[in-house]
């Protein structure tokens, strides 16, 4: 903790890009060597505590932040200290969010999260439309925040707001359920509340969208997991609504993916679809669902941020993210095309990627929950497969866009970046016992 806090002040004086990157990288390995091989809550003190879920999510966070530094090398000379400061703030916020014991503390840091993201979008974004995007993000996030907080305060009369609560409450009604869940469902995002996500992704720089897709959405899942324990009784009656909404929304949004022409919007919609799966997994309230959601969140964090990196690499070369200009890339970047294939295949949950295990677990949980929903689920899986294929085929094959004046080859650092996304995603199944 003290180290973390002193790092904030340290961060203002770091003059080197790679020093900061190395800090996060070694911090990740430091976390990795301390990993608890134990599945329940542990290390619980008065303020902080953890379980496997929060520990893994925090590890994912440090990993993504260290990769953010590699991905946005073109920002190296612009507001370096400010950028470092924001990244350290992110690290500390994730620390407090994932490891706090108290719901109110969790809420406060959950809300602080919004400010650095907004600063990233506004400060380093490209277009004028980032006004609107930031506005959407802000309003969607804030709208359910105070009702949630008032529900927490109301619960505080009867229950000590401990995050690892072992018993459920009987006296909670529908409004509690709605307000306690909605703040996280909007963050995930749930279908019908997802409009902010594509907008924010399009306007955000690569660092912003990596953090958004990599960790911010996972905070929502983390919150839902802890709220479900509180409102257990109401869940049993009302979860069917959100589950069916998610299934319908996933189908609609994966169809929406097929007529996108912007790479980033396509990836953003695909991440909404994946997050819909995660919501379903939590709301089915069984063990398979919980582990499946955990695995899928981990896999999606690496996979979608890798895809955003790929889209950014193309954006830097072609100055456009349009699918009509980014086509036939296999002719000029054959080796990058290989990475496109690997990451797209991970996105369509191809073995041995981690997403596959998550989706299988979720399939089983949904089959336990209701008999015939898995037919719809199969349809959605096919659609997910197809839009990932669409993404791959339309960028890599076809006629090359010939209006380019010059060619810039792919740097080794960019290959390294993609390597560090893909390898943990596809080799982590070897240590599956961490997750279940």
């Amino acid at each position, binding site marked *: 903790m003290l180290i973390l806090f002193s790092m904030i002040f340290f961060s203002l004086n770091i003059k080197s890009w790679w020093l900061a990157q190395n800090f996060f990288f070694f911090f990740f390995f430091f976390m990795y060597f301390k990993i608890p091989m134990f599945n329940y809550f542990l290390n619980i003190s008065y303020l902080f505590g953890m379980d496997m879920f929060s520990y893994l999510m925090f590890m994912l966070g440090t990993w993504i932040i260290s990769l953010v530094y590699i991905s946005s090398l073109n920002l190296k000379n612009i507001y370096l200290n400010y950028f470092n400061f924001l990244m350290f703030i992110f690290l500390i916020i994730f620390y407090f969010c994932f490891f706090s014991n108290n719901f109110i503390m969790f809420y406060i840091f959950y809300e*602080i999260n919004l400010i650095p993201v907004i600063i990233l979008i506004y400060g380093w974004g490209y277009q004028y439309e980032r006004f609107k995007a*930031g506005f959407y993000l802000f309003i969607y996030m804030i709208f359910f925040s105070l009702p949630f*907080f008032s529900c927490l305060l109301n619960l505080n009369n009867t229950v000590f707001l401990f995050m690892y609560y072992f018993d459920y409450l009987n006296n909670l009604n529908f409004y509690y359920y709605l307000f306690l869940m909605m703040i996280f469902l909007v963050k995930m995002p749930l279908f019908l509340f997802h409009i902010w996500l594509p907008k924010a992704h399009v306007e955000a720089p690569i660092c912003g969208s990596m953090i958004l897709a990599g960790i911010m959405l996972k905070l929502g899942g983390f919150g839902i997991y802890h709220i479900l324990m509180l409102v257990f009784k109401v869940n049993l009656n009302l979860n069917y609504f959100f589950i069916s909404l998610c299934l319908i929304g996933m189908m609609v949004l994966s169809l929406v993916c097929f007529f996108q022409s912007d790479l980033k919007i396509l990836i953003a919609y695909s991440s909404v679809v994946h997050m819909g799966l995660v919501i379903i997994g939590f709301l089915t309230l069984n063990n398979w669902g919980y582990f499946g959601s955990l695995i899928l969140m981990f896999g999606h964090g690496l996979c979608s941020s890798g895809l955003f990196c790929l889209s950014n690499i193309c954006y830097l070369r072609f100055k456009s993210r349009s699918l009509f200009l980014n086509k036939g890339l296999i002719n000029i970047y054959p080796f990058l095309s290989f990475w496109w294939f690997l990451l797209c295949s991970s996105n369509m949950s191809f073995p041995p990627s981690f997403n596959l295990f998550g989706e299988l677990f979720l399939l089983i949980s949904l089959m336990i929950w209701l008999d015939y929903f898995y037919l719809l689920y199969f349809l959605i899986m096919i659609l997910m497969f197809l839009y990932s294929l669409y993404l791959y085929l339309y960028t890599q094959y076809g006629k090359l866009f010939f209006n380019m004046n010059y060619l810039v080859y792919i740097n080794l650092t960019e290959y390294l970046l993609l390597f560090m996304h893909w390898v943990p995603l596809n080799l982590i199944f070897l240590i599956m016992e961490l997750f279940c």
Partner: protein
Amino acid sequence: MNLNLTKIMFFIMLMFSTLMSISASNWLSMWMGLELNLFSIIPILNFKSSIYSIEATMKYFLIQAFASILLLIFLINKNFFFLNNSNIMIIMPLLMKLSLMPFPLGLPSMMEGLNGMAGLLMMTGQKISPLIMISYLNTNKNLIFLITLISMNSILGLNQNSMRKILAMSSINNSTGMWLAILLNNKLWSNYFVIYSMLNFLMIKILNNYNINYINQLKFFNLNFFFKLNMMMLIFSIMGLPPMIGFLMKWMLIKNLIYNNMYMIMMMLIMLTILNLFFYIKMSYFMLFNFNLFNKWYLQFKKNNYNFFLFMNFFSLFFSYLIFY
């Protein structure tokens, strides 16, 4: 340095009249305090005289004089024929003095004409004595609901470009909060009031120093980095986002409203703050940009004494525990 004796006299009168009305033991001397308050603030509003400030002073005088005459009439009649119901009749003119219920839009149009510090006085100092007087009376719950509803007027801030008008709109919203706070608990109100006036003071001081009158002036300033960060934190704080001190006001108020089972009013208040977010965000946009257009002829201000306040804003939620309890 020449001492402006009239200024000193009027300021002392202002303070003592407020003290008089909040420490009086009977309604008539409270009323006297309010009257003295009115007569001492009118010269203060006009120290830097212009057509606009005179107009604003005139409006202020008319509203306040009308309210205090109403107050006097209801006070005199209290003993004869209104009996128990007379509370509402006394509250109404006091709310008018707070620029709350019947004519909430007087304040923004006045603020437009006044200079910054006079505006600050109007938004903070002038609200002490009517609020304390209201706290002596019993208030009907329906009335509370009605007034919270009517303070939806602050949504008109969406349409404004003038910084002072926007601040006045947020003051309407916040004085609703203060009014609810003082109905529940005096200590709560004093905390709320201190935080609110501190934030308002910082905001108005910055706007005054950099001579910012309209929102679009923020857009073209070549401001330095720390100023931007500071201003952003301030606006977020007035918004009431969690890490800042402004969130503490909301926290205290919501918690006390819940303890008193005023759920509907709490929901109304939450909706109000979300509405107000829109125009605060409009202010904070320009502070968040790293790259923007600016005028070359704009003078760079060298003085930056506000970095301390940035610290205060950001970390005070964690230390406020020590300050207030």
